[in-house]
Every structure is written in C-alpha cells, then in structure tokens.
C-alpha cells in the first residue's frame, strides 16, 4: 500500500481544513492550495499537505508532471492547476 492510500473516510476523519471551510465544494468552486509531499506517478496520485499539516490523496492526472514541493490547486480531490509560481507558498 503506497503512502498515497489514505484511510477510508467514514465521516470526517482528519479533514479539519475541509470542515473548517464549512462551505459547498462545488458551489463555491473552491480550489484549495495544497503542497505535494509524496508523488506516486505510476498511479497518478500525490499525497498533499495543507498548511495545518493535514494530508489528502489527490488525483494529479490533469497537472502532471508534479514534483515534491509543488503547490497544487485541488478541487474535489483532483488537482486542476499548479498554483501560480509567483508568491505561491503553502
């Protein structure tokens, strides 16, 4: 099992940054900046980290290539863009 396999979420498990947003993922069209900690290129996943240290497994097929340290904009578990290079610090 790779580092990108997160435990199966039952209710809210260690997703403090997502529950803290208290909004609707789709309606807010939110894309949260997360920093890449581990890349599993073969499976198209990356383990990414929010500022508070919480981690989530993210689909990276749309934004490859991805490197450790990159900041990705993540919507509904999928990275939709690299955060802008200028001033992008997670």
């Amino acid at each position, binding site marked *: 099992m790779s580092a990108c396999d997160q435990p199966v979420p039952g209710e809210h498990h260690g997703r403090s940054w997502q529950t803290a947003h208290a909004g609707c993922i789709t309606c807010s069209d939110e894309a949260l*900046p997360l920093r890449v900690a581990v890349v599993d290129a073969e499976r198209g996943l990356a383990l990414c980290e929010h500022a508070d240290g919480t981690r989530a497994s993210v689909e990276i097929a749309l934004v490859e290539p991805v490197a450790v340290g990159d900041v990705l904009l993540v919507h509904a578990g999928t990275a939709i863009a690299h955060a802008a290079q200028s001033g992008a610090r997670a």
Partner: protein
Amino acid sequence: MKFVDEFRDAELGRAVAAEILAAVEPGRHYKLMEVCGGHTHSIYKYGIDDLLPANVELVHGPGCPVCVIPMGRVDDGIALAHEPGVIFTCFGDMLRVPGSAGTLLDAKAAGADVRMVYSPLDALRIAKANPGRQVVFFAIGFETTAPSTALTLKRAKAEGVTNFSCMCNHVTIVPPLRALLDSPDLRLDGFVGPGHVSTVVGARPFEFIPAEYGKPIVVAGFEPLDVLQAVHMLLRQLSEGRCEVENQYSRVVPYEGNLRALEVMAEVFALRPHFEWRGLGFISQSGLRLSDAYADFDAELRYGVPGVRVADPKACQCGEVLKGVIKPWECKVFGTACRPERPIGTCMVSSEGACAAYYNYGRFARERELV
C-alpha cells in the same frame, strides 16, 4: 498560506475601489452578473458590494450546482439511497436539499446508509473497502468537478471495481449563460466569469457572449482583489466601448483550458439532450450523463430511478433569485419561512447559494441601511 494574502490586501482593495469610482459614468446604472457561487460568497464575505459605487449593481447568477438541482432529482437520489445494500455517497451540501418528502439527511435518519464524501475518490475507496455492498456516488458540479468524477470512473474501470456506480448530475456552464442572455427578464451589462470552471474549459468558450450578445465578460479569481479588479476591467471595457473576453485570473486559468481534463470528460461523459434546472426549466445540452463506454457504472441504468418531475413549492422564488431577477431579501419567504436551518429552497441550503450567503454575511449591513 501566502498564495492568497496578496489578494486580500485592504489598502490595495480601496485603491481599486477608487479606480472603479473613476471608471463609472454618473447617472448610468450598471448591472453585472457574477455567475459563480464562489464569487457570490466572496462578495458577501468581504463586503465587496459596499466598496462599489451605488450605480454598480452585482446580480447573482445560477452558478451553484446544488441550487439548480430540481426536487425530482433529489427524490431520485433518495430512492437510490433506499435500495437494499447501497451505500449512498455525496458532497455535504446535497444532504440538506429538500426533495418532495424530505432530504438525504432525513433518509439517513430513517436508516439509509448515506455518507458524506469530499471527493469521488473517497467514494471509490468506500467501494473497495466494502466489496459486499454497492456504492453509489451522486455526482454534482460544473466542469470544475466533472473531471474529478471522470478520473474516478476511469480508475474504477481500470481497477475492475464493479460495486461502484454514479448518478450523474453534472451540468455545463455555457447553456445556462445563453438561457440567461436570451431571457427577457434580464438586462445585464457584463459578466464576472467563473474562475475554476475556466481552469478546465478555458476562457475561449465564453467568446460567444461578446460576439453574439455584445456583452463583455472577465474571468475572475476568488479573492476580494480578484473580484474588484474584474469589476474594474468590465467597467473599463464599457467606458471604452470594448466588448471582449478578458482573463483576470490568468495566473491560474489557461485561455485554452486543460486539454487532459477535456479529453477525459469527452471519454467518460456524453451530453444529455436536455436537463432540468431548478428555476430555469429545461435547458438543451446542459447536463452530462455517462457515455456508452461507461454505461456499466451508470446508477440510473443499474437501478432505475422514479424520474418524476416535481414542481417547486408555491412560496419558493429560487428561480427568480437564480436568474438574478430578484435579490434574496426580495423573496417573500426569505428569513421567515425559509432560513438556513429550515430551508424551503436550494438557494438557502447551499452556503454559496445567494440566499444563504446573504443571510450569513449581508443582512446586518441591510439592517443598518434600513435604520
């Protein structure tokens, strides 16, 4: 997180607000529509409309995928949740949307196994962890979210997961914009374009708005400075007699969109001939279903759903709010019969629905005005 701080600078915000004031013609009334629920939320949360001159009016559009789901589709979801052995998964705000006889949360209280997830990948993991159960994912969202569902379905197919299916309620952004522009109820001067939908589809699909309707559109980010800058860019277009697509969010949005996202969507989805939108009626080619190649994962085919069309409650004026014809506080039941804890309509359910956003952030300003 430094990525956003620069775009929340209050001093810069006031500077852009001053430039906006300089760009408007006195005596002219401007009606600008922001399509995306995230922009509505930003506007209320940061008090952006307070920074604008009185003759610049922001009108909230139907960019809330939860808000536009008709009650009949909610009933269909609840029917799936009650299928024996099904684990029904969906995003959080869907849980509280009223169908004709209750919400998904009510169904859960009545014994259905309904679980909130943050991504379709979470739903797939639940399927893999529960091989003896069937997992249904209730997919919602515009083109920002559709690629996520598509990638998960590709993954399910590649990994041979058979106890996973999707009830697809994804919608597309261009047809409702066209429906609004064709509507006799609305006279808009320009659009603040959806920032993250555009990350997937690009800014190019919006070229029909200046070309066919003569209105400018500026694709905007979600921080307060992004929205203010986009409003300024629109007003400058109007004062200079220009009419084009501009990309304020160019640090993230590629003009041509994300090719890989578009390819995976084309593989996994097909356009429905029409789809019902709450408040807007049936709109052609505005909704997605699973493509024939992914028919095995289609929950509506696997189970069948009632598919009954349910009219909105008589008191509900969500349709007019979604079209920007009335403001939240002009709805007869706003804040009285319809409140976030007991919503009648979807605009109050979703935290980014215009009514909920206004209720949570805006009404104190309004009360000050009335006093």
